[in-house]
């Protein structure tokens, strides 16, 4: 877990996350009338973990394996002039996105800028039939006209707060709201 963050409240526990992802899987199948032309693309890091979990749910419901990809959005970010990020993970799109209904999966929807960047990565890899968005937590404060199709939980937050997801394989599988440390702390 990130250092110096003061945890204020627990938003989702292991069961809560699991139920939310199950519901999202059902909603995705309902909206797309099955999993025939479906693919999930997670935004690194953490979105890819959630994408895998949703794909497992879809497989147990529909008995179909949907392609799962992961994208790193660093080269598409709009804050390059502020910081040239070097913590870059591989983009893993081992299928053609042409003609597919792509569901972008991310952990937290905040400003919408990551989603914008992820859409550009996908479009640079081909021409999907549609792009949809699934997030585990929507915390508000949008800076772009972007709206999620599937939301695990809406969590109103203040700008000072942050959402912490502890969902890596060895984690507790919980979601918290935490307060950001004071600058210099």
């Amino acid at each position, binding site marked *: 877990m990130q250092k110096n963050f003061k945890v204020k409240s627990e938003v989702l526990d292991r069961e809560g996350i699991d139920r939310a992802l199950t519901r999202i899987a059902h909603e995705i199948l309902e909206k797309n009338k099955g999993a025939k032309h479906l693919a999930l693309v997670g935004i690194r890091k953490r979105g890819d973990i959630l994408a895998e979990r949703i794909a497992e749910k879809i497989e147990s419901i529909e008995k179909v394996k949907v392609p799962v990809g992961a994208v*790193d959005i660093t080269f598409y970010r709009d804050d*390059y002039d502020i910081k*040239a990020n*070097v913590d*870059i993970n*591989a983009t893993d799109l081992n299928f053609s996105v042409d003609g597919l209904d792509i569901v972008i999966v991310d952990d937290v929807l905040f400003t919408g800028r990551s989603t914008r960047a992820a859409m550009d990565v996908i479009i640079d890899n081909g021409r999907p039939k549609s792009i949809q968005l699934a997030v585990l937590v929507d915390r508000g404060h949008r800076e772009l006209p972007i709206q999620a199709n599937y939301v695990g939980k809406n969590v109103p937050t203040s700008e000072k707060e942050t959402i912490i997801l502890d969902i890596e394989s060895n984690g507790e599988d919980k979601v918290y709201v935490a307060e950001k440390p004071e600058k210099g702390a």
Partner: protein
Amino acid sequence: MSFRHLITLQELPKEDIQEILNLAQSFKQVILRPIKKVPTLKGKTIVNMFFEPSTRTRTSFELAAKRLSADVLNIQMSTSSVVKGETLLDTLATIEAMQIDMVVIRHSASGVPLFLTKNIKSSVINAGDGMHEHPTQGLLDMFSIIEKKKKIEGLNVSIVGDIAHSRVARSNIWGLTKMGAKVKVVGPTTLMPKEIEKLGVTVCNDLKEGLKDADVVNILRVQLERQKKNLFPTLREYATLFGVNSEKLKYAKPDCVVMHPGPMNRGIEISPNVADGINSVINEQVTNGVAVRMAVLYLMGGGKKDEAFN
């Protein structure tokens, strides 16, 4: 990390080299996809100034910049105002007045890129200066080695040929020794700079001995244009004694990696069998060059507003 200029591998810390090489992997992935372009350097302008002939390096830098969505200007000496007597700094002042961000420079005089860093505002990348350094070639050679061997540390690397006139050799030596390789330089004494062993390399004047147990064989071009006096009797003699052919290559490890920075003099320093053989990564080096240069441009172009924000 982000740095302002790239002039030498001598002064680039090991961590930064590692970071560039890691980043280049991500960019290699970009240049192998259907749309080989990312928007990262949109709105930035990069000027390629080449005061020496070059196809490979210039096109590689140009492509790297374009694949990062930067705008590129190419200025060649023969068509620039330098031929009308304008000084280098005046030419650059003119170009800088057009609001550019980075200058990629190749010059036959060692030290010109460093001189520019002290006199212009833009970021400067050395694309080869005289007999000094060619840092991006050193980086792409290391990248190509890692791709095949998964590491650099502990590998035996033999650099064969005209060490004295080679900036590629110098950048390779600085980079490779920093990353923990055991470097051997191989060539006739007349093409060996004095006191080269002080850079931490072993000197070898016999090709067979020089290739023994090599994991990597980096063959340099015989730079006829840089030789003012006759440093070896004939090209034929050089080819016989120091040309790497399949017979000689047997002294290296069977799975060795053969590299050449190009352009090749086939039949002189390298035989066609070796150049096109299974150990050769010469064409792969060219592909990797674009990825490595993208990584360098990416790291140099970003983060400029850091101070303003904090």
